[in-house]
Each structure stands twice: as C-alpha cells, then as structure tokens.
C-alpha cells in the first residue's frame, strides 16, 4: 500500500470516530451511566434527606428478599399481569381478524378501537374512576338497576387489581389490534388460496395452518411488549388508588416510587429498580431469541 493511501485511510478512520461520537455520547449519558449510577446507589444507604451515606454492600438486596412489602408488590404485579396479558393479547387478535375480513366499516372500527390509545391515560383514568365509583358510578347504577349487588371496584382489595387491569386493557387493546392488523395484512392472499385448494377452507384450519404461524413474529412482539407494559404499571395506580386499599394495588413500580420518593430510601429504591431492570431484560432476551426463530422463514 502506498503512503498517501494509508494516510487517507487513517484520516477516514478518525472521521468515522468523530461521526459516531455524538450517538455514543448520548447512549452513555441517557442509558449506560444512569444504569451504573442506580446500581452503585443500590449498594449504599443513600437517602434524599441526608448528606451522609455509606457503602452497605448487598444489604439492600438482603432486605428486599425479606421484605413483606416487596413480596406483596411482586404478588400484586403477577396477579395483575395474569389478568391483563391474556386480555391484551387475545382480544386484539380476535378484533383484528374480525375487522380485517370486513369490507365495509373497516376503517370506522379501526378508528373506534384505536381512539383510547390516542387519549391521555392519566386523564381518562379519572373518567374511569368516576364510572366505577361505588355510589354514583354509572357501572354500579346499571348493576343495581339489573338487581345485582354494587361492587366497590377501586375500593375493595379483592377487585382493585381487576379494575385496574380493565382500565389498562381499554387503553392498550387498540394499539395491539393495529399491530395484529399490520401482521395480518402482510400475509399473502395466495397462501389462503393455496390452503383452500389443499382443503384447509374451514376457518379453524385457515387459522391454525396459515394465520397463526404467519403471525408468529407479530405475536411474539405483542406478547413481550404487553408483558413489559404490565410490569411497568404505575400511572393509573398513582392517579386512582396510590396503592390502597390495604396495599392491595401496590404494584412493583409503585413500591419503588414509594420507597424512593415518599420514604426517601434511595438506596433501597435503587435495589428495587435493579431487580425491575433484570425482569425487563429477561423479557427483551426472550423476544430477541423468539423473534429470531420466528423470523427465520
């Protein structure tokens, strides 16, 4: 190689570093450094109200696994996820298939179901709490008109998680439905023709032979993002119940918030955050692995 060419290469390499520098810097400042800081804070007894802090090792984690509030929050979050996830997956799937085969009113239904996604959930949560009010709420009034007992949706420890799941479902179904619709649109019509000629013209066969396998990448995406959404539940709780009644709606992120910003236990709150990060990382890992497999047609 001649000398001028190698000089040019060195210059270009230097330029390349300059060009990626802003992106690297942003990723460091926005993602990597905060994560390291949170992890570092989780190893201390730092509180918001005192300048003094010291290194406590894994004490915060030890405390976490012995903390009944932590167990309660985890339990609540899991219950909530178990109610939320099937609804957030199968309802949009069903709606998408039903709407897609319609010729008329298709866009009308698309808009109707997507509308909640465009509204602000924190504001709409207040509307829902009014609807669910134990005394004047429309839902309870209707129940009573039918001769059924009134339900204190948000005020009873037995129902609060289901009520919260219902509100979140309402807000997420339209979004997942649009994802499924996009997945359905991408399935070539000829596959259905081929299936029909091959004898798979029964709707059940069409679904299991063509629609479901072809939707696999979309399904993995919807399932994982919805799981993350379920674990990230915070705003509706903060707006409507603040963890009440009797800690029955104290979900994981809300507990983290309480520990950090109400009780000022920043170190402990950071340990909870690290745990949360681990769960989200697991979901992301599952998605990457599955999406890789499902995408390998």
């Amino acid at each position, binding site marked *: 190689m001649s000398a001028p060419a190698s000089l040019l290469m060195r210059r270009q390499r230097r330029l390349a570093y300059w060009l990626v520098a802003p992106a690297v810097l942003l990723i460091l400042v926005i993602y990597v450094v905060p994560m390291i800081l949170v992890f570092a804070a989780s190893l201390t007894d730092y509180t918001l109200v005192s300048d003094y802090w010291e290194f406590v090792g894994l004490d915060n984690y030890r405390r976490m696994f012995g903390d009944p509030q932590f167990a309660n929050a985890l339990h609540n979050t899991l219950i909530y996820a178990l109610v939320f996830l099937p609804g957030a997956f199968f309802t949009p799937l069903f709606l998408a298939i039903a709407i897609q085969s319609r010729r008329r009113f298709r866009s009308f239904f698309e808009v109707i179901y997507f509308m909640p996604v465009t509204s602000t959930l924190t504001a709409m949560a207040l509307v829902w709490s009014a609807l669910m009010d134990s005394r004047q709420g429309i839902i309870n009034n209707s129940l009573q008109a039918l001769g059924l007992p009134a339900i204190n949706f948000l005020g009873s420890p037995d129902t609060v998680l289901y009520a919260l799941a219902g509100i979140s479902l309402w807000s997420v179904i339209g979004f997942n439905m649009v994802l499924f619709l996009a997945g359905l649109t991408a399935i*070539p019509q*000829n*596959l259905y*023709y*081929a*299936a*029909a*000629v*091959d*004898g*798979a*013209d*029964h709707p*059940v*066969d069409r679904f*299991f*032979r*063509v629609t479901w*396998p*072809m939707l*696999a990448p979309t399904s993995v995406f919807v399932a994982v993002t919805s799981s993350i959404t379920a674990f990230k539940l915070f705003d509706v709780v903060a707006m409507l119940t603040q963890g009440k009644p009797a800690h029955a709606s104290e979900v994981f992120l809300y507990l983290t918030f309480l520990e950090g910003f109400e009780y000022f236990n920043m170190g402990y709150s950071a340990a909870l955050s690290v745990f949360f990060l681990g769960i989200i990382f697991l979901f992301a890992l599952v998605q990457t692995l599955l999406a890789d497999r499902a995408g*390998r*047609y």
Partner: protein
Amino acid sequence: MARLELKDIRKSFGGTDVLRGIDLDVEDGEFMSLVGASGCGKSTLLRIISGLENADSGQILLDGRPVGDDPPSGRNVAMVFQDYALYPHMSVAQNMAMPLVMARLPIYARLPGGRLFTPHLRGSRADIALQVEKVAGQLRIDHLLSRRPAQLSGGQRQRVALGRALVRNPSLFLMDEPLSNLDAKLRVEVRKEIVELHRKSDLTFVYVTHDQTEAMTMSDRVALLRHGRLLQVAMPGSLYFDPATIDVARFIGSPEINLFPARRKDGTLSFAGVRLSLSGGPMGDSDLMVAIRPEALVVKGAAGVASSPLEGPQFSIGVTREAIEDLGAEIVIHGRIARMPDIALRIRAQKSLHHAGPVAVPAQFDVRASLSSLLFFGADGQRINGVTAGVAQKALAR
C-alpha cells in the same frame, strides 16, 4: 383424469365485466392454455374453475358433474400459483403433505400437537409420508424434504409447488403463470419438465400464461382471451397460420404480424402501393385489412441474409430501413413502406450460414412475398376465407 366443460361463465367485479360468457371444453388428458394480455380475465377464469372464486352465472362441469357450488377442496383440483404460495413455516415435506393431511386426518388430529394424542393414526401419517417421498423422488427433490422454502432456489420452490399439487392425484391440474418468477434459462427447462409431467401423468392441465411462447410450445390447444371473451380455441399451429380474427393474428407471433389497410374495388385489391386481382369471398367494394407474417417477407439485396425461395405468384414492396435487431441466428428489420411512410413494416429473416461479419441492409430495399402467405380480414376484424389473390396487370409491369 377429467373432462372439463365451461358453459357461459360470466363474472363482474363492481360493475366491470371481467368474463363475458366463456364456453370452453377441455378434453380428458388435454393440455389447454389460457392466453391473453394482463387483465383479459384468464386468471379469474382459472380461479373460478378451482372454486376460489364463484362465477356470477354459468356452469362448470367436471366429468359431466356440475361442481359450481362445491368448495375448492371438493373439486379435487390442484393448483400451482405464480409465487408458488408455499407455506413458509413448514418444511418441504410438510408443504407437500398438506393436501393429504387435510383430506385424510380428522380435524382434531390436525390441530397443533394433535400428533401426541392420536397414536392410532400413525399408520395414516406413515402412508402420507410415503406418498410424499414417492412424488418428491419423481420430481428429484427428495433430498430437500427437510428444508424450509426460504432455503430453496426459485426452481426448487417451483418443483415443491408442483409436488404439493401432484401428491393428491388431482383430477384437474391448474397452473397460474407458474414460470413467470423464474429466469429465462430455467423457464425453458421447467417448461420441458411440465410437458414431460403432463405426458407421463395423463392429467388434464389448464395452464394460464401471458407468454405466447409458453402456450405455443406446451399446449395441445390454446384458448386466446381478450376483454373477457374467447377469441379462438385451436391448436398452436393453426392459431398461428389460421387466425380467426385480426386480434388473434396480432397477439400470436413475435414480432407482430404486418397489417396494411386495403381497399377492394372492381375486383382489384390495393394496399401499400401493391395492386392485386382478387377473386372469391364476399363481392362488392369494401375496406379490408391485409396481413402478412414478418418471416414471409424476403429481403432482396442485403448482405448476410439468407433468402428462402418463394413459390407461386409474388408481389414486392419498396422499404425504407429504420432499425435492425440482430438476434444471432436471425435478424429483425424494422422499416417503413417507401411510398407510404406512415405504415411500419417488420421483417424477420434468417442469417446466412456462410456470412461472417455484420449484416448489411441497404437504406432502401425491396421485399418480396408469395401471394399465398397473405391473410385477409374484414373491417370488423373477422377473417375472410376463400379469397384468392392474383397478380394484377399493373403489378406485373413493375
């Protein structure tokens, strides 16, 4: 093995008539091609035969039995699609087994995981696997059975699609432009294989294509469609030499047939500066069209072009050269009639075997042709039969 009859098939989509009364008989074991430009309704017709689409009116008979109301699976037809329509999530073996699985296994055994709780069906599954292997062997894809479609080349996918269609022993084999996604060389190869397949299997084939070469080389008979109507159904040779209408003559053959507006007056026909005597056919003065194939015109005075001998009475036309396409073995000369420059002329000629170097065609030259190679069409586009052209006195004088 089946005989297919279509009776007055009509179909329209949202006010547009796509098929306007198709009557067609396909004999048992025949290879019938449906040819036409895109939008002529040939694919719609095929989908109606298969049952994927319902005709608005008309009858479809398979071996004399009306099947118009049967679902696709009830007609025992197999279909090969242009994009192959293989199931991307299944292996080649699973793709090919699909029609048999659907036909032979009950619905609960076909559900995901159905294999686990239906051990009594192991025999049926083994039969299906055996059948798939047999057909895969015939098509020489048995070494690909465990692959996914994405891991196959275009030609291999094409064979898998054929295999999936063959495995069920269909009574009717439908193909919708199966070669158009293949490259030119492979297309010729698969064309031969499909013909071979037809010869061996004795099945009735209905083959849709926009490519006249495919239709002409593969079929027993060709049905030419245009604007939802059948123009002509005939053997490839007679479609070429004996077209029923001017549209058929123009569609079949490349380069396109030469057309000249002509006038018949007092028994004399004049076109492109040529005057011929005309006898027979409908009498009286009229406007008509005269047509002649590009290879029926013989170039005089061009170096490197072989001139085949002409028979019988002839005529000649002066031509201005415009462009030359050298195709290797033959050349296509585009020109205009010297005395009527608004009429284009296409000439196809064989190259001389002993001539090395480029072909030289003068800027002005004469072409000659036999009177017997002229075709006559009326102003309505219908062929006029029983007309004989002779040499008029004036033409002789030239």
